[in-house]
């Protein structure tokens, strides 16, 4: 993408050196790694809990956050985190009716929150006037301007989230696999659900800064979904999701460096290709390799 980036040769080492010659690319790789690991860990639970819609909504909530932060003149990073966590709290707090005539209001609540958040984003953009370029960066990502302090913030948030997830991981897995039995054996369902949503908000905000709010899914859903197709054992598939996310992000960044097109496209395409490959493997080849892997990571 930079003007003097040079062409791609067949010498892999030289290409790698070319990619890492610029400080901003080193930052992009560092931030990408942090974000991919966090997305893999949190996204694995999200896919298991079938909460992709909530995940996407929280990611999108980052857009008005970033636009609002720019409007009042502070760094967009804080806007991303503040709004995504606020979105998680709102979705937890909103009432859901259960009962005889209940319909599943959850998806309606989430959809309304999402549209309202985006509408606020539109309002902030139109109040600010004239930063259409950064609107595209918020929505579709940019890896060119990642600063040292941004990497540090991402690292701190990811470390906090990972520690929290390590603490609540086991009961959360229990609750996600069988909510009724978990609740009956004394797992605190509501606090755990709320804590997980906040973690999801943090992860979505972190991923947004690399892929943009609209493409968070490429790292949050697809690597965990692929990993869960490939192995049924929770620990292995969790690790696989993290590694896949990391590989996809680094490869995507490297390709984007040598091409004029946005990084989001390469990351989503690599992710989708791995998902399709995993589906094909399971449908066609897995039966020939002895023990069939059960889906859904239920152990």
């Amino acid at each position, binding site marked *: 993408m930079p003007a003097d980036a040079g062409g791609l040769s067949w010498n892999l080492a030289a290409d790698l050196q070319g990619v890492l010659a610029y400080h901003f690319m080193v930052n992009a790789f560092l931030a990408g790694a942090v974000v991919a690991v966090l997305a893999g860990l949190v996204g694995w639970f999200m*896919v298991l809990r*079938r909460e*992709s*819609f909530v995940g*996407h909504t929280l990611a*999108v909530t980052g857009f008005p956050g970033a636009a609002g932060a720019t409007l009042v003149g502070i760094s967009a990073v804080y806007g991303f985190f503040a709004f995504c966590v606020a979105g998680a709290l709102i979705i937890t707090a*909103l*009432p859901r*009716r259960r009962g005889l*005539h209940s*319909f*599943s*209001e*959850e*998806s*309606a*609540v*989430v*959809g*309304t929150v*999402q*549209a*309202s958040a*985006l*509408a*606020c984003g*539109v*309002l902030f953009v*139109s*109040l600010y006037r004239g930063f*259409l370029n950064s*609107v*595209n960066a918020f*929505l*579709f990502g940019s890896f060119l301007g990642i600063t040292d302090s941004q990497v540090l913030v991402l690292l701190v948030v990811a470390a906090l989230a990972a520690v929290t997830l390590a603490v609540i991981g086991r009961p959360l897995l229990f609750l996600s696999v069988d909510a009724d039995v978990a609740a009956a054996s004394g797992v605190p369902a509501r606090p755990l659900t709320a804590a997980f949503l906040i973690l999801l908000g943090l992860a979505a905000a972190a991923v947004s800064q690399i892929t*943009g709010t*609209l*493409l968070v*899914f*490429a790292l949050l*859903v*697809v690597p965990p*979904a692929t990993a869960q197709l490939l192995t049924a054992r929770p620990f292995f598939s969790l690790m696989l999701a993290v590694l896949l996310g990391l590989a996809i992000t680094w490869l995507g960044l490297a390709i984007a460096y040598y091409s*004029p*097109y*946005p990084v*989001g*496209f*390469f*990351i*989503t*395409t690599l*992710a*989708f290709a791995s*998902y399709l490959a995993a589906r094909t493997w399971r449908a066609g080849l897995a039966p020939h390799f002895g023990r069939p892997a059960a889906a859904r990571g239920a152990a």
Partner: protein
Amino acid sequence: MLLPFAALAGMFSHPFMRYAFLAGTAVAVASGLVGYFAVLRSQMFVGDALSHAAFTGAFAALVVGLDARLGLFIITVAVALGMGLLGSRGHADDVVIGSVFAWVLGLGVLLLAIYTTERSTTNGAAGPAILFGSIFGLTAASAGIAALLALVTAGVLLIIARPLLFASVDEAVAAAQGVPVRALSLGFLALIALTTAESTQVVGALLLLGLLAAPAAAAQRLTTRPFRGLALAAVLAVAAVWVGLTVSYAAPRLPPSFAVIACAALPYAAIALVPGVVRRLRRRSASRIATEAAV
């Protein structure tokens, strides 16, 4: 007393406001009706995914030099049917939607980049217009087409409403009774796709979810009777569009898409939150009376 009427007459003296109301009303009716079933069937995530597919479709058409609407309709319907076929029994699965959705959007980003680098002189505002709507920029012809298509969508939905309701409430029993459950599922996905394609012009690809979700959810809170709820959802959606457009006309700094979504979301928030608050206040005052009586 005549002042509001004079202001209204002034508003409708602008052709662009008349076109906005024409297209907006028809699209709101379709969104309200389709949204009611989408909420009932918990398929809001499909609507979300399709609204983003609409963005990709519009840019695909623009890049090859066709009318954006053509791409919108073809791609959204194709993605809807594809997701339905990948999932089981014509339902799109959560993970399937998420994965397809991510990639379709990635494609959209690529197309946006190609379009803005190669054709930036032709129409620089196409991106924001597709994402966030351009209802005040409709021509007479495009408003007419949008209205016609929306009314056809609403009509088809009303024709299949009864069997679709049966299939949505109890799929197994409906299938046993000979209702073509799978065909209805796929047909309904196509209707969601058509509605998202139409409303992309009105509120934009990113905001149309509000017009699908909020009026329908509010209607389902207000009544449990399906056909009354269906009508109520359409009425609430139309009211949101009318009030939103008027507010945006009166206060030009508010973008029309923002005003429409706010007018759709606020009534739902009020309906969902107020009864609980009232109940809690009443309970608190009752307990206070009880303690005072005890003292």
